[in-house]
Every structure is written in structure tokens, then in C-alpha cells.
């Protein structure tokens, strides 16, 4: 898995490539923690190149959403492929987190 960070108009955009699973979630968690420690309050998870997410990946999203809520921040997830969308539907995360169809729509929601 690879994560690239961009700043778009004050929003920290994380571009994920590959699989976010048990093996790769510690890397993702460290990257998100670094952003939060630096004071980011607007984070966009761009999953356009993410192939799969497991329950351990979902836990990172949940933990991030909670931390941002405490600092009056916001988190959005966008560009889910069919496999990732199914994971969100089965787990119920589709109705828990803020989802957007694409990056443009996601950025407009901040």
C-alpha cells in the first residue's frame, strides 16, 4: 500500500493505493496520526486507487473521525470502488461516515 499526501485549499488529501488491511493499517494509522498531530482538521481519504479495505482499515477511519469530531474537524471519504463500497455497506460504515462520489464533491463539502 502507498499513501501520498497533498494539501488542497486547506484540506489534507490522502491518496491511497493498494490494500488497506491488517498488514498495512499501522502505516496508514501513523500517517493519519502525523497529520492530526500537525493540526489538520480537514482530512479527505481519496480511495480512487484503493483496491480493498478490511475491518482494521475501517477502524482507522472510525478512530480518525472521532478525533476530528473532538477538534470540530471533518473527514470525508471519496471514490470508493465496488469492492470497497460493498465493505462499507456490509459494515454499515456507509451510513456512519461522510462519503462523496468524487474528489470535487468531497472538497466542496468541507
Amino acid at each position, binding site marked *: 500500500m502507498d499513501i501520498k499526501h497533498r494539501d488542497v485549499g486547506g484540506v489534507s488529501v490522502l491518496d491511497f493505493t493498494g490494500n488497506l488491511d*491488517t498488514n498495512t493499517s499501522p502505516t496508514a494509522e501513523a500517517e493519519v496520526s502525523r497529520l492530526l498531530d500537525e493540526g489538520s482538521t480537514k482530512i479527505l481519504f481519496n480511495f480512487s486507487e484503493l483496491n480493498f479495505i478490511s475491518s482494521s482499515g*475501517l*477502524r482507522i477511519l472510525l*478512530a480518525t473521525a*472521532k478525533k476530528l469530531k473532538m477538534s470540530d474537524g471533518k473527514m470525508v471519504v471519496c471514490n470508493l470502488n465496488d469492492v470497497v463500497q460493498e*465493505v462499507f455497506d*456490509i459494515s454499515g460504515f456507509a451510513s456512519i461516515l461522510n462519503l462523496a462520489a468524487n474528489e470535487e464533491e468531497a472538497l466542496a463539502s468541507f
Partner: protein
Amino acid sequence: MTEKKEKPAVALFMSADLAGSTAFKSQALGDSDSPKWLEAFEAFFREVPLIMMGQIAAAFIMEEEVPRAGVWKVIGDEIVFMAHPKSSREAQLLTIAFYRTIVNYDRQIFERWPLRIKGCCWAAQVSHRNREIEIPEMLGGDAEQAYVDFLGPDVDAGFRLASCGGRGQVIVSSNLVQLISSLDESEGIRFHYIGRKVLKGVYAGRPYPLFLMSMEDQMPETWEWEPEHDKGLEELRKNNPMEPAAILEMLERIRNYLNRMCHTGIEWLEFQAD
């Protein structure tokens, strides 16, 4: 000045087990390259951890943090989740999340295949009594962290206890029942005492008290024509849970007796944050 003694961590184990899977595997062979039963098993292993994470999100919706919880082991037709709750409250909410996972998925899987699932939830204080051990030879670790396993009488008790629950039911260890029953807010958790059973190597061979869990707003699915029409099924259908005060009194009497007469060293769970 005396230093505050640090209480050891608590490990919470939650087992989801497919019931009726052996018969299903032999009956659902199909005639294609992959047997029909494979689809059900793939769905079970893929969906249950996702539903569990969704239920954790729901249970912790008002909390500031969410504890680490994930799949610890897969043993045959069984998924065992493990978490390190930091407080009684976290242990209680994780137990609720697990219960709802089992009851909801039991209904879902039964709609698709002739299968049910059953659950067991138990806890161990990782102390002199139960230990974490690293197993370097085991796959699953990485360069920085070896695979970690848990050994001890309270860990073993859970695996024995898991066989005592029925389809659609969640059976809970006595130390976890004691912990949850002692909390001021029940959050809707109820326990049904269904009797005692000797579990090999547990409680010095004395009968172990068996409790099934239910929630005020969600009962397990019970079918009177299940093959194991047992005491647990009857108690759930009566919908007559035991009062927390009565549970605490009974469990304390058992613990006092076993520790005095059999030197079992049974301890109730303690958290640093409580």
C-alpha cells in the same frame, strides 16, 4: 509516598462459530469445481469482521475513543476476536457490539443457507494468572512484533465455555458477567442463568455457572424445533433474566468457596481506568 500499583491489562475474547457447518459441508457439495458450501464460508469470514466493526462503531458512537479490536485467530469454522478494553465501560460496549453481531448475522446467514452461528465472550486479566507469550516461529508477526498468544486458565475456560452455547446464543464467562453486572448502567444487557456444567480443567473440576446474554431491545432467535432444545433455549424463551444483585451474590459465593477450598485463585477483572 506510595506509588499507585498499575493494574494489568485485560484481554477480551469473542468467538463467533458456525453451527451446523459439518452437515452443511457434506450436503452441499454441488457439481461444479467449487463446492456450494464454500460460498457460505467465504461470506462468513468476510462479513462477520466487517459487521463487528460496524457494531463497534455503533456501540461507541458517544465515546471519544474506540478500542483496538480485531480478528485474533481463525480456528476451523470459528473466528475469535480479541480486544484490550481500557475500562469496564469499554468491555461492556464491546460485549454489546459482539452480541449484536452474532444475533444480526445469525438471522442473515439463516436466510441464505441452512446455517446458524453462536457466540462466546470471555475475558482474562493478563497477570500472573494469564500470560501473553511471543511465538517467533508463528506466521502472523512481523519484523518488529512477533506473533503474540495468550495462555492461562481464564483463556482456556473460554474455549471450553464456547461449546456450551447454542445456536443464535451468546454465552458469557463468569468473570465478564460479574464485571458487567457490577456496573451502574446496564446499557440494556441482561443475563440468563441456565445452570452449571463441569468444564474440563476449569474451576478445579467444580461445575461452572453458565450465563446467556440478551439485550432489552434484541433477543436471540429461538426455534423450538432446534435439535438442541436445551435449558438455554427454554430460559431465553421465558425472557426472565437474573437480577444483577443476585448474580453478584451467587458469583461471589462461588469464588469464595473455590478460592478457600480448592485454591483456584479466581480474581475478578480490574481496570486501571476504573
